[in-house]
Structures are given as C-alpha cells and as structure tokens.
C-alpha cells in the first residue's frame, strides 16, 4: 500500500512516497507561482501513481486539494524525525523564513517555539549576507570556520544586523570574521528561541541552514549540546505527512 506526504513550503515542494514503512520515492521541486503544477510534477517524479492516501503539510498545504488531512509542519516534523532518528527528543528546523524548535517524543510534538518577528529570516539573512560579502552560499560556512577573531554582532533585528555588516566592511574587517559574526549572531538568535523550551538531547537539526557548517558549530556552542543532522533532513516533514497518510489506510 502506498501513502504519500507532501510538504508545500515557502521555497520548495517536497514529496515522499512510503511503501510498507519504507521510502519508495521522493522528489523536491522549487515552488513557483503555480504551486498546484509543482505539486503535480513532484508527485510524478516521486512515482506516486498508485498512491491511495495523501497528507499535505507546510504553509502551502491548502493547495493540495486531494489531501486527506492537512496537519501542520510541527506535527509532521515530530513524526518525521521519529522515523529518521527515533532517539531525537528535539528538532530544530531553520529554514529561509522561519526557525522553530520542537520538543518531541515517540513521534509526537510536545511543545514548540517559533521565532518572533524581530528574529525572522535566518536563512534569508545568511543568503543576503553571502551576496553582500560576494561569496557563494555554500562557501559561507567553510569561510567562517577560518575565522580566528570574534566580532560581536547584535542580531535581534536583521535590518540592524545588516547595517552592522556594512559597518564592518567599511572598517575592513576580514571577510571570514564577518562571516563568522553572521553565523554566530544567527546561532545566538536561534539558540535563544530554543531556550524558551528546555533543551532536551539528542537534538536533531534540519532545514536548509543545517548545511552551513559554521552555523552548526556556533549553534552547538550556544546550546552546549551536539546536533545530529539526519540524512534526508529536508524531507522530514514530508516523511511525517506520509506516515500520517499511512495511518489513514
């Protein structure tokens, strides 16, 4: 029996097809203006032809008309992480626009925190800063790791932080130190959001920003705990949705 989870996020559409509790197919597509088309294309790519039950999640989940249920990303991430990393008791998800921390147990979300308006856009901020510093997004983390100097940056507000980066550039601060300052500042923001909940290891980190090694290290230092980045981390919510779909049978 095939079941399918679709995570319609702000940037991408992710589809996971499960068969007897194992991933049979998956696909990721950039979400365009016609989300319905992207969903259809991703379904095709994931070979979801015979799927009986679909569950949709993510901020754009209403666009999936055939979904049997539409639970939120929080619920699905808690389910998904249980599949990928059953021992995890906390998931931190740092995406382009939103950061969130979820305390979980046995696939259920117990409590969660989402960043406030003033601390929004960690992923987007790092992207913007990599443009300002003229380095590739992929190179941002490795460059930051070369830094040996701590530059304090206030990052309660991304707009203010951006002015600080401009100031640092004018002061001829080395790029790697600025890159590190940006990663440290973002980690500080995400870390403080996590501390609204109790930090309960093992902690998994998912979301696009998990690919930034310097950010990961900074967040580990901030939270004083190791972070595990599971394989298929970007699919965690889609997997959770697919698991919920499987229950619907």
């Amino acid at each position, binding site marked *: 029996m095939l079941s399918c989870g679709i995570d319609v996020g702000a940037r991408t559409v992710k589809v996971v097809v499960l068969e007897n509790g194992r991933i049979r197919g998956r696909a990721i597509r950039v979400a365009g203006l016609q989300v319905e088309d992207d969903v259809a294309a991703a379904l095709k790519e994931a070979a979801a032809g015979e799927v009986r039950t679909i569950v949709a999640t993510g*901020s754009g989940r209403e666009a999936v008309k055939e979904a*049997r*249920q*539409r*639970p*939120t*990303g*929080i*619920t699905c991430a808690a389910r998904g992480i249980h599949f990928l990393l059953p021992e995890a008791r906390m998931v931190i998800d740092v995406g382009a626009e*939103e950061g969130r921390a979820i305390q979980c147990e046995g696939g*259920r*979300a*117990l*409590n*969660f925190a*989402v960043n*406030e*308006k003033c601390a929004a856009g960690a992923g987007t901020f790092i992207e913007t800063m990599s443009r300002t510093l003229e380095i590739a997004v992929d190179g941002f983390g490795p460059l930051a790791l070369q830094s040996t100097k701590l530059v304090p940056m206030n990052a309660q507000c991304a707009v203010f932080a951006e002015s600080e980066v401009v100031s640092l550039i004018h002061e001829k601060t080395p790029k790697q130190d600025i890159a590190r300052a940006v990663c440290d500042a973002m980690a500080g923001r995400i870390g403080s959001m996590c501390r*609204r909940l109790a930090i309960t290891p093992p902690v998994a980190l998912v979301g696009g920003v998990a690919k930034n090694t310097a950010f990961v290290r900074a967040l580990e230092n901030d939270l004083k705990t190791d972070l595990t980045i599971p394989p298929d981390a970007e699919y965690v919510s889609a997997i959770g949705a697919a698991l919920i779909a499987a229950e619907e049978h």
Partner: protein
Amino acid sequence: MPKYKTGPLKCWNKAKELRQKYYEDYVSAPKSGALRIGGSAWAFSAVPEGLGDVRWLTGEPYGASCAFDRKFSLSCLEAAEKKGYARDLCAYMRNYWGSILIDQYAFGGGFPKPDFFWTSHICCSHAKWYQVAGELEGGTPCYAVDVSVGPYTQITPHGVAYVVGQLQDGIAWMEKLTKRRYDDARLIEAVITETEAMSLWAKICMLNRNVPAPLDEKTMYALYVFGVIMKHRPEVLALYRELHDEVKERVERGIAACANESKRLISDTQPPWGFLDVFRHMETYGAVSIGSLYTFGLAGMWDFPDGTMVPKATPRQLGQTPRTREEALEAIVRWTLCRPEYQHFYNPGLKTDLMMRIIRDWKVDGALLHYNRGCEGLSLGIAQNRMELAAAGVPVSVFEGNMGDEREFDHARTLERIDSFLETLGLRKVEV
C-alpha cells in the same frame, strides 16, 4: 453530529445599537449642551459625571474600532508616522492621533474634538497620548491621574490618598475649565452604578465556568466593551442584567458557544482586532477560548479569596454605600486599584497567579498568549507569564501580532502556529 446545541444571543442587537449610539452621542453632544470628554477607557469615568451631561470618547476602544476597519486604520497610522511618531508606539494611540490628523471619525464625518481630556495613567503612554492629542488639536486641556500606587495586595492609605487627592484636584480643575458646578449626587450615583456594572460583568464571566461554555471570547469582546467605555452608565447596568439572565438560561438549557467544544483555552492581551476570525478558526478544531484575564478583568472586578476569584462585593453589598464626595472618591479609587489588568504593572507574577485561578476554575486546557506589539502595557511581563504557566504544567503557546496595526500581523503564519498548538493538544481539524 454536533456535540452541543448552539444559538445566537438574544440581546446581541440591543448591544450593537447601544455601542453605535455611544459613538453618535459623542458627536451630537454640543447640540444638547453636553460636554465632550476624551481619555482612556481606564479613566475614572464616573468622576466627570458630576458636571452634568457629559459624553465620552474613550481612546482604546476607539483605536480598536479603527483597527477593525483596516483601510481606515492604515490611513490613520500613516498620518501619525508622517508626523514623526514611531511605528512601535501604542497602536490605539496612533490610530487616534491619525484620526485627528486626517480629520476623520471612524464612525463618519470629521473628527470631533473634546472639550477636555480626562484620563488615567498606568502604562508609559496614557498621559502622553492625550498630551500629544491636545497638541495636535491645537491645545485641548488634559488632566491625567496617576494610579500606579501598587498592587491590590498592598493598597496603602497614602497611596489611596494620593489618587483621591488627584481626583479632588481634578474636580476643581474641571469646574474651573468648564465653569460648571459640580454635583456630588451625580458622582455618587455614577460610582454606585460603575461598581454594580463591573461586578455584574464578573458574574457573567462566572457562568462561563460551565462546560460547554455559553459564551466564546469573540462574542465577549463585543459585550465587555460596555464595561469599559461607559461602565458608570445605567444603560450598561441594564444591558448586563439582561445579558446575565440570558447567559444563565443558556447554561441551564445547555446551549454552547461552540458546538464541538472539546478543549477550553484562554487568550491574553487584546486580540488583533482586524483578525478576530482566528477565534472562529480555532473552533474548527473544537477549541474555544472561554475568556482571558483581559476580558474578565478589564470590565469586571473581582475578589480573590483562597486561590480563586469571585465577583467583587460592591460598596452597596458591603453596606458601605458612599454618601459624600470624599466617600465616593475613596470608594471608586479603592475599587479601581483592584483591577486585575493593573496588577502585572507591579509584578507579572501576580498576573500569572490570576491566570492560574482562571485556568483551574474555568477548566482550561491551554493558554494562547498574544505577544502584542501594539501594546507594551499589557505585554509587560508576558514572557515571564509564559514561563510560569509552562512551569505549572499548562500547555502554552504564543503568537505575535498587533491589536491595531495590521501591518504587524501575519495572518497565515499565525493560523499555522495556532494549528500546531492545537495539534499538540491532540486536536485535529474537522475537515469539511
């Protein structure tokens, strides 16, 4: 098949008309020789009643009315910003100032200027709000009363004397300004009415302890407002009597506000007025907000015996009906200082304690706190409240928004967050 019977409130239209009349009466005041008074809804509104026929426009409910009309509100907010006022200031205040600046009243016509402002000051904005409003209007006189003399647990004689003294000075100030003679009998009557009305609102809130709740908070918003805008008026007392009887009857007949009530929540601080649909959205999960310290405690007055809360005994019930100006002022001061919504200004821990009383006695399953960027006064200590509620084992979630500036409210993301919270409570959306 719905779990409970539901039905509309019979006195709904009467309430709606009364509210409309309130805003119209303010405009037409000069025609009937009445005075127009502006100021906070937290003001000692019974006191100017001694001047004779006075009509009120209270700033916060007016700002909320503006916010309800998002397009109008935006033009107000932008006008205030253009004048140099920061975007993070109180959203009600900016809506109010904006109305002066664009000279438009949210209920039609030009903005009606008051004869004077009479307000109370407890947050950092109240007195300054009308100081600026007066300046924008070209010099409307303003008298503000400082009520920040400590929590209900520590009311001191010198604190009461300070507030009463300011009211006495205020009466002299009003007499001089308006050249009217002050009638103590009218003051006494207004004080008695106010205490009766506020105690009665608390009594109505008590009925919401019932499962299923006869009232949901979205409906309560439309009704509590009378205990704020005209709490000292006999027509409000009459409306609340009628409402009380009707709600009591709903309880007896098992009529619910939400047909599928399965989890009972409380909120906190003012809601984002332009987006009250979030409350209806929660009901699709079977979650109903049965009130908040805000709706219970702004229009209602309470006593707090033994870890619980009950409608406050009025001076009349205590056999202490005031007979002189001095007695009336002292009675209303002592009464007002117990306002639940004042307590966190001195200690957020007191607010957590009051919220916990509601959570216990109203059988509440979780709390949804509005981190309200539009009101730092009621948001003061809210992070501490969140921590303390969580530590007490209450499921609690927050959403960020603004009661009166729609630009600071992310509707889709808020619904997403509420959905997540309701899912952690084990609820599922009833898919239709």
